[in-house]
């Protein structure tokens, strides 16, 4: 039987197990919305902006591990998706974004709502397609889902001209995909793994540095086994949070620009870094020239381009993180020899790490009168016991959350790491809530970031996505202000946001619930109330305007050169520790 392109589209998505689409209609994409009108198996969630549709699909993908699907019309609809696509691309999130396109005979004539979205998204997608024939749709959709999710995941764009959606063709969905030009390496080289095991056994000051790749390949269990079996401390990147339990005795905290003192010092002073599913981002390495000067580096990653891109690697292992870790553990279990010199050195190493932990733990100065943002995050952690899904925006809110919320499980942490997209968190939280209607989902936001996609409050209310938004409100763009205070002579240019809007009234205007807290004693009751209420909630926490994120590695410094908040002083003081 022949189906229209729009019908083939919906049937193909069902074959891929898609049950939620985040989509915004418009002229040329209408044939699909017409088919969705009668569709029972797929839930259509209507956002208020196409960018948010993609972030929602992204939050859905990060929290479930499945491919997220977004849908937009041609021209402005398509160009609005670009920030969402670039966000997913930088963080390797599997998405398929379908965009409408003007009919094929009109492509290239500057038709109404025409944009070359395939050209525009070429550098920020893993792959993209312009479908020219209805008969090609099934195999292109099959390939799109395959490419998005296999190997190093990423977003794929499929551009659908209106005539392709209207024309008819036979529908036969392919069972398998075979691409002669795309064959990721999954199993690590045995010889390299042997070398890695040998280096691990011989190292005196080893540290595991793991990232988002561990979560993407579902290797958290194997990572824990590796750390516990070898008794090696673990630091995680921003993207890796949740890949290793945040309350584990071997956990050093996050590393990098706002990493913990023990994490950065351990990496800097180590003699062996075991990098797992991480890519030595500039926010992690600091000044590359002085990164971990005496360390040998083992780098496990599915993407060969990540290896030796910024730092020298001694033992590269290309492969799926989980499969490589299984083989590495096997190899390590075969090594029986005991070496007293090494054992003694390891004891000293742990002693040193303990000292760093004691010297400069993560810390903030509690205040009876003013709400400290870290206090709010600690309370959220206490009340949710680390079992909620937490999204953040970008800036101070993101870094404080990364530091003070202990992520216990993978896929409970949604944040834009690579691109640093303000306005990501709220729609991403909505996407996760759509995937898990019964889970508690928080967005920890700043008053700047939340306003970048605040229109999605309408989506939250109407679709009953009861996300709890904790706004750490300092009436300014806090992270920029922090840089201006520390590095630009306190010239606060373009950061003052004033006291608008009234977030409580705004929430009420949308039919959600709004709360405001100005004193620390109000924080916990409000959070408890918000968790109880069966509606989306905006919590306006008026926080200390001057509060900064510490430790901080200034741009261009090495990661052992941290600005720290010095303890036991009433007045805040900064110190450069070398």
């Amino acid at each position, binding site marked *: 039987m022949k189906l229209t392109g729009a019908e083939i589209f919906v049937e193909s998505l069902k074959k891929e197990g898609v049950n939620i689409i985040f989509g915004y209609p418009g002229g040329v994409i209408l044939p699909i919305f017409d088919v969705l009108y009668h569709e029972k198996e797929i839930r259509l969630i209507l956002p208020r902006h196409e960018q948010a549709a993609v972030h929602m699909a992204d939050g859905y993908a990060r929290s479930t591990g499945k491919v997220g699907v977004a849908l937009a019309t041609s021209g402005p609809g398509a160009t609005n998706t670009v920030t969402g696509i670039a966000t997913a691309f930088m963080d390797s999130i599997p998405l398929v974004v379908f965009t409408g396109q003007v009919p094929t005979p009109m492509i290239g004539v500057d038709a109404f709502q025409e944009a070359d979205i*395939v050209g525009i998204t*070429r*550098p920020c997608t*893993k*792959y993209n397609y*312009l479908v020219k024939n209805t008969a090609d749709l099934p195999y292109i959709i099959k390939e799109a889902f395959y490419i998005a999710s296999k190997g190093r995941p990423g977003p794929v764009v499929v551009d659908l001209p209106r005539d392709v959606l209207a024309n008819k063709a036979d529908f036969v969905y392919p069972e398998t995909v075979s691409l002669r*030009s795309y064959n990721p390496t999954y199993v690590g080289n045995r010889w390299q793994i042997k070398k890695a095991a040998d280096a691990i056994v011989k190292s005196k000051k080893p540290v595991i540095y793991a990232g988002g790749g561990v979560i993407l390949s579902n290797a958290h269990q194997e990572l824990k086994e590796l750390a516990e079996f070898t008794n090696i401390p673990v630091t995680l990147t921003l993207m890796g949070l949740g890949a290793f339990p945040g309350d584990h005795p071997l956990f050093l905290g996050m590393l990098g620009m706002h990493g913990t003192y023990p994490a950065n010092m351990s990496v800097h002073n180590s003699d062996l870094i075991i990098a797992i599913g991480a890519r030595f981002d500039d926010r992690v390495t600091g000044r590359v020239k002085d990164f971990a000067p005496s360390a040998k580096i083992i780098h496990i990653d599915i993407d*060969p*381009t990540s290896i*030796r891109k910024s730092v020298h690697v001694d033992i590269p292992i290309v492969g799926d993180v989980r499969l490589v870790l299984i083989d590495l553990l096997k190899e390590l279990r075969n090594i029986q020899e005991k070496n007293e010199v090494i054992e003694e050195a390891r004891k000293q190493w742990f002693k040193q790490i303990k000292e760093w932990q004691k010297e400069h733990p993560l810390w903030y100065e509690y205040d009876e009168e003013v709400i400290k943002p870290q206090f709010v995050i600690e309370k959220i952690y206490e009340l949710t016991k680390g079992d909620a899904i937490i999204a953040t925006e970008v800036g101070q809110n993101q870094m404080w959350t990364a530091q003070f919320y202990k992520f216990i499980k993978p896929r409970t942490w949604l944040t834009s790491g690579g691109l640093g997209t303000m306005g990501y968190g709220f729609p991403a939280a909505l996407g996760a809530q759509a995937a898990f209607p019964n889970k508690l989902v928080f967005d920890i936001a700043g008053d700047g970031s939340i306003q970048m996609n605040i229109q999605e409050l309408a989506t939250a209310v109407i679709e009953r996505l009861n996300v709890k938004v904790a706004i750490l409100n300092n009436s300014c763009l806090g992270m920029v202000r922090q840089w201006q205070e520390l590095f630009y002579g306190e010239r606060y240019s373009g950061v003052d946001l004033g006291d608008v809007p009234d977030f409580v009234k705004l929430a009420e205007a949308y039919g959600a619930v709004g709360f405001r807290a100005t004193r620390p004693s109000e924080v916990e009751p409000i959070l408890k109330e918000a968790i109880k209420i069966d509606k989306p909630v905006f919590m306006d926490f008026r926080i200390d305007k001057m509060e900064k994120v510490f430790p901080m590695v200034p741009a261009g410094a090495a990661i052992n050169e941290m600005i720290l908040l010095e303890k036991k002083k009433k007045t805040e003081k900064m110190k450069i520790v070398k």
Partner: protein
Amino acid sequence: MTHILSLLVENKFGVLSRVAGLFSGRGFNIEALSVAPTQDPSISQMTIVTTGDDRVIEQITKQLNKMIDIIKVSDFSGQDYVLREVALIKVSAKGADREEALRIATIFRAKVVDSSPTTYTIEVTGDDRKIEAIVNLLRPLGIKELVRSGPIAILREDKNK
């Protein structure tokens, strides 16, 4: 250092733009690029001449390998290969210069492929050294136009096999 990269790619629209976009987006150099279908019409062959230190060349090769439409990437540097480029040179040729232009063409085993009362168009094939040599000799006559194809290359077969 200069490297010759030989790529087998899917013969689809947009592939050239993907490859060119990769080079410009990541700040890699392209000195020359040529592309044409192979004996299998679904596959095209691209020859790219690029420069960079070992680290850059390693990244270029890895990034190219990662691209979905690229089937195979080979770096010919350090291997035994045949490299050819075609140049079409329109040179001024009047009076005694007409003889001189033909003499130079003969020395380089070049062909005259078009002539007018005042010009010759000369076709020459070879590596870049040969092409530069003939261009230098013809220059005093007055080169009106010069078109080069960019190099293509193929590995030499092992003679002991």
